[in-house]
């Protein structure tokens, strides 16, 4: 059975801190790993990773995948209160139609 495990489950930091969110997975016939941000309602897409060692970057957010060790990290530098959200990791296999999500990391950035 496919498995996606995120850590930590929750995190509280101060504005300006750097955070690292973790996602490990076990999936048969891996195809891609995705990160989503969920602020209140609809999760919004952040990154999709398919190859090891290639960093994806968008502003203060970046992510990288390690297909050998079966994990990904999401980094947020110089955090802002607007970064407070649940960050969801999901994995897609070649043998299924849908994404398999982890439980998410709840991030709270305090002023």
């Amino acid at each position: 059975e496919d498995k996606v495990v995120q850590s930590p489950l929750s995190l509280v930091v101060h504005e300006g801190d750097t955070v690292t969110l973790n996602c490990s997975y076990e999936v048969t016939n891996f195809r891609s790993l995705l990160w989503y941000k969920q602020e209140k309602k609809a999760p919004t897409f952040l990154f999709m990773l398919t190859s090891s060692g290639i960093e994806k970057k968008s502003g203060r957010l970046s992510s990288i995948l390690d297909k050998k060790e079966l994990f990904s990290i999401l980094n947020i530098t110089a955090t802002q209160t607007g970064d407070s959200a649940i960050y969801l990791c999901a994995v897609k296999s070649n043998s299924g139609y849908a994404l398999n999500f982890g439980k998410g990391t709840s991030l709270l950035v305090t002023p």
Partner: protein
Amino acid sequence: SQTIHQWPATLVQPVGSPLSLECTVEGTSNPNLYWYRQAAGRGLQLLFYSVGIGQISSEVPQNLSASRPQDRQFILSSKKLLLSDSGFYLCAWSPRSYNEKLFFGSGTQLSVL
């Protein structure tokens, strides 16, 4: 551009009552459609997905059912709600040929009392 509409945003229903949540997609054809449920503000559980009209796959045995009467319409139903059906329900779509990236609706918060 593509948009996804999901309604209602909030619903409070008594135990044993029926349920119908609706989701429609605009601006695309032949999308894959999905229903997810999220408990306690995290962890999305796939309930149903559909790759075409009338084609529904269920991931979790439960009290719910789904239907796709039109290409861009996806409906989640129940004949008799249980307390355990409470949760946040999200509809999503993906392109047929590029189905990694999901686009989510704004969700329905269902409380069964």
